[in-house]
């Protein structure tokens, strides 16, 4: 087995890095799109209860639907390929992002916002100088959860023809070549772990910067 794995890397390392690249491209693109949707939505949700309630219900519904099901539901509507895979991943990433953004903004003490206003800030300055920096650790935590979710779910994107490390796993399963399955699965796990550590490090950095002990 080990010999087979080593041989794979000797002969097909270009192919392997291609899959990794596809996987990362899928994951990061969908993360960025999801963030662009989730941050404004979360900010609105923190200011408006109706939006917050809607987001929370929507998030819980999404949690019930398995990622794989979501991917397949999109095939009849969107066909196969990268775009439907991206859409599915974005939808999966939204709940942790939105919920944590709302949480982050809600955690900012109303007294601090009032003090900000009383020092002469308008709403935009208040957001930029007070609310956003204080909500940032929570928001980044949402990014972490979303990223891990996306990286693992992107494995399944292979099924609708979007490529990525899932290709190795499903090829291996189809041809009964376990070395492919192991390489694919371990790589996905490593990517997940790495992204988690990276985000944890970023969050720690941010927290150190503001020294806020609360």
């Amino acid at each position, binding site marked *: 087995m080990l010999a087979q794995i080593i041989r794979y890397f000797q002969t097909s390392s270009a192919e392997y890095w291609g899959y990794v690249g596809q996987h990362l491209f899928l994951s990061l693109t969908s993360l960025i799109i999801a963030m662009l949707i989730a941050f404004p939505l979360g900010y609105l949700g923190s200011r408006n209860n109706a939006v917050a309630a809607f987001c929370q219900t929507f998030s819980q519904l999404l949690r019930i639907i398995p990622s794989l099901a979501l991917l397949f539901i999109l095939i009849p509507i969107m066909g196969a390929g990268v775009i439907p895979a991206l859409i599915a991943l974005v939808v999966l990433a939204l709940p942790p992002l939105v919920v944590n953004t709302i949480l982050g903004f809600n955690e900012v003490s109303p007294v601090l916002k009032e003090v900000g206003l*009383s020092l002469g800030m308008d709403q935009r300055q208040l957001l930029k100088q007070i609310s956003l920096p204080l909500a940032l650790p929570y928001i980044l935590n949402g990014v972490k959860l979303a990223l891990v979710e996306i990286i693992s779910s992107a494995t399944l994107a292979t099924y609708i023809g979007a490529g990525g490390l899932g290709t190795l796993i499903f090829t291996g399963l189809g041809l009964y070549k376990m070395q492919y399955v192991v390489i694919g699965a371990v790589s996905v796990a490593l990517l997940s772990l790495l992204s988690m550590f990276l985000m944890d490090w970023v969050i720690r950095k941010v927290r150190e910067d503001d*020294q*806020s002990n609360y």
Partner: protein
Amino acid sequence: MTKAIIKFEHVAKKYGKNEIISDLNFEINQGEFVTVLGSSGSGKTTTLKMINGLEKPTKGKITINGNDLNDTNLVDLCRHIGYVVQSIGLFPHMTIAQNIAVTPNLLNWDKEKINKTVDDMLNQVGLDPKEYSGRYPAQLSGGQQQRVGVARALSTNPPIMLFDEPFSALDAIIRQDVQQEVKELHQNLSDKTFFFVTHDINEALFLGDRVMIMNKGKIEQFDTPEKLVAQPATDYVAQLLGTVRQNRALWEQFK
């Protein structure tokens, strides 16, 4: 020649059907130190927040420095009224210097002027700028944080300073120190008007040139401490002052 810098005319404030403040009328002159005394729910904090526009009156007219509050840009107004709150409200993600520089930055002062202001303000409240500018609020004691809160409120040299129970979270000894300091601060800055809300009668009598006693959204009496003691206008005021006498009696008893 004294000038009314804060003027309330028939001001009322309702939350839904709840009337927090009914028909409030008073004038405060420039340079006065006014303390506002009342229990929670008396409307004292709401009154304070109406001065810097954080709350809007449902009825009546508020004039600040001759300008009707309705016609004033509230953001600009806030930048010219200092505000110190009970929970101190320092921004935890900013250093002491950054906290003090918030409003100067909003006003786009140049760097040199801001740095000088930060140092001046810290000196004014008795904190060494070299030692404290770079620290974060969490690294300071409660009393020091409250001093920074005052320094921040003073940063733009505002003609009016509002204090919302700033010392109620401090313990008794530190509290007495900062009370003394605020009193001296006002003596040094005698053209500034201080509007100080508290529920502590001793604090109110000690600090105020005049004391406004509020109960259930109305003013019971607004007078100098001497007048209050000599001629309490209502039973409520008399009862309040009675508590001071009781404290003294307790002191005598144990002496």
